[in-house]
């Protein structure tokens, strides 16, 4: 009896059932807090035709960028894709479909998707290319557009610490999109730096309850820094 124990011991097992043409919701901001080993596993599996919702698309050779190398991504839903030459080339040639989505709208699409809310109105994007073709409603004299939420076949995310039930804690700005991404996946797979026994985390300190997590795996992380910026003493 596994009960609430979500721990799996291999990355193969973690992504079992991931098939071509599925939709994946991914956590991370830039290369910060990305599920780097789960992304590497998707590359290893060679899954193709994927639709991926993630704030960014990694950089050349890092993060989701590695899935572009073998054209595994069909469509990218992201707010900012400016750090990736291969991405740009595939977008310009039409190989890769891109749905540029405002960052807050993207976060809310994931949050709402995970909370069973199919769509929401927001002022963001009204009167811009993002609002084209979308329903407009006026509330208290302001215009809002209707945005549909996102639900994925899988979500992949990274947290700092977990107990075996999948109760999660994140660390600093590596939290970013991870909590919402997890809630928006039908099968939510989370990799963490440390797994502790049940009862060792203070319930008041848990950032995301284990109910949202289906599979949990402990990994080691490279944690590449995109813009190392320091001051002198």
């Amino acid at each position, binding site marked *: 009896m596994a009960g609430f124990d979500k721990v799996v011991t291999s990355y193969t097992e973690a992504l079992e059932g991931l098939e071509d043409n599925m939709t994946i919701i991914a956590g991370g*901001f*830039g*290369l*910060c*807090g990305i599920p780097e080993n789960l992304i590497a596993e998707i590359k290893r599996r060679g899954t193709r035709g994927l639709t991926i919702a993630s*704030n960014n698309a990694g950089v050349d050779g890092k993060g989701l960028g590695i899935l572009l190398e073998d054209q595994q991504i069909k469509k990218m839903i*992201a*707010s*900012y*894709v*400016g*750090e990736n030459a291969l991405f*740009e080339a595939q*977008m310009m040639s039409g190989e890769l479909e891109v749905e*540029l989505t*405002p*960052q*807050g*709208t*993207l*976060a*809310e699409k*994931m*949050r709402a998707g995970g909370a069973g809310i199919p769509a929401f109105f*927001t*002022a*963001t*994007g*009204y*009167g*811009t*290319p*993002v609002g084209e073709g979308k329903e407009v409603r006026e509330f208290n004299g302001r215009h809002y557009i209707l945005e549909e939420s996102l639900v994925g076949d899988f979500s992949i995310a990274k947290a*700092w610490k977990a107990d075996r039930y999948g109760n999660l804690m*994140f*660390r*600093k*700005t*590596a*939290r*970013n*999109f*991870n*909590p*919402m991404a997890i809630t928006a996946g039908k099968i939510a797979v989370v990799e963490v730096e440390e797994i502790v026994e049940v009862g060792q985390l203070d319930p008041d300190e848990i950032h995301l309850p284990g109910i949202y997590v289906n599979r949990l795996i402990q990994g080691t992380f490279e*944690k*590449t*820094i*995109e*813009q*190392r*910026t*320091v*001051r*002198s*003493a």
Partner: protein
Amino acid sequence: MALTREQLAQRVAQEFHDGYYVNLGIGIPTLAANYIPKDMQVMLQSENGLLGMGQFPLDEEVDADLINAGKQTVTMVPGASIFSSAESFAMIRGGHVDLTVLGAFEVDCQGNIASYMIPGKLIKGMGGAMDLVAGADNIMVTMTHASKSGASKLLAECTLPLTGKGCIKRVLTDLALMDIAEGKFILRERAPGVSVEEIAKLTEGELIIPENVLEMTL
């Protein structure tokens, strides 16, 4: 003389008030953090999920899990807090951030802003800019007044895809500070040594010139 980047940042900082929560965009807006008056408390919001952003870290303090919206390593000030992207944009869209400062390619006298895309040339995405301009009441745009070839960026109507519609009320350029109201630019301040005529010549949208246009003090 047109304002330098540092002088623009200094003028931006004059918009700060004690107790303000402020979101500063990448570039010149970020530089304004260096000019927060000593007798004032300002808390910087970074939309990737940090309120209370501090200075860049010392070499030994660098933490891959602690970055700003420009993906640069940063530190936190005492009293900082961390939250998810959804929470971050809830505070932005909910109007809880007191001041937002961001750059642009074009602004027009209807308060429209274009800042994220040049079709065929630059398609990197809007990041959080569309949420910031739609959510904040108090927004300052910083930009150069004209392109290098002398084409006005303060237009009657933006030519590039919009980031936001009718949401900009204040623009600071290297030549002038302007408000936008009722479909017109209103000249409020001119950069030291820059004439009203020079500003008028480089402003394509309709410009109101009040009798007394102050020279900026920096």
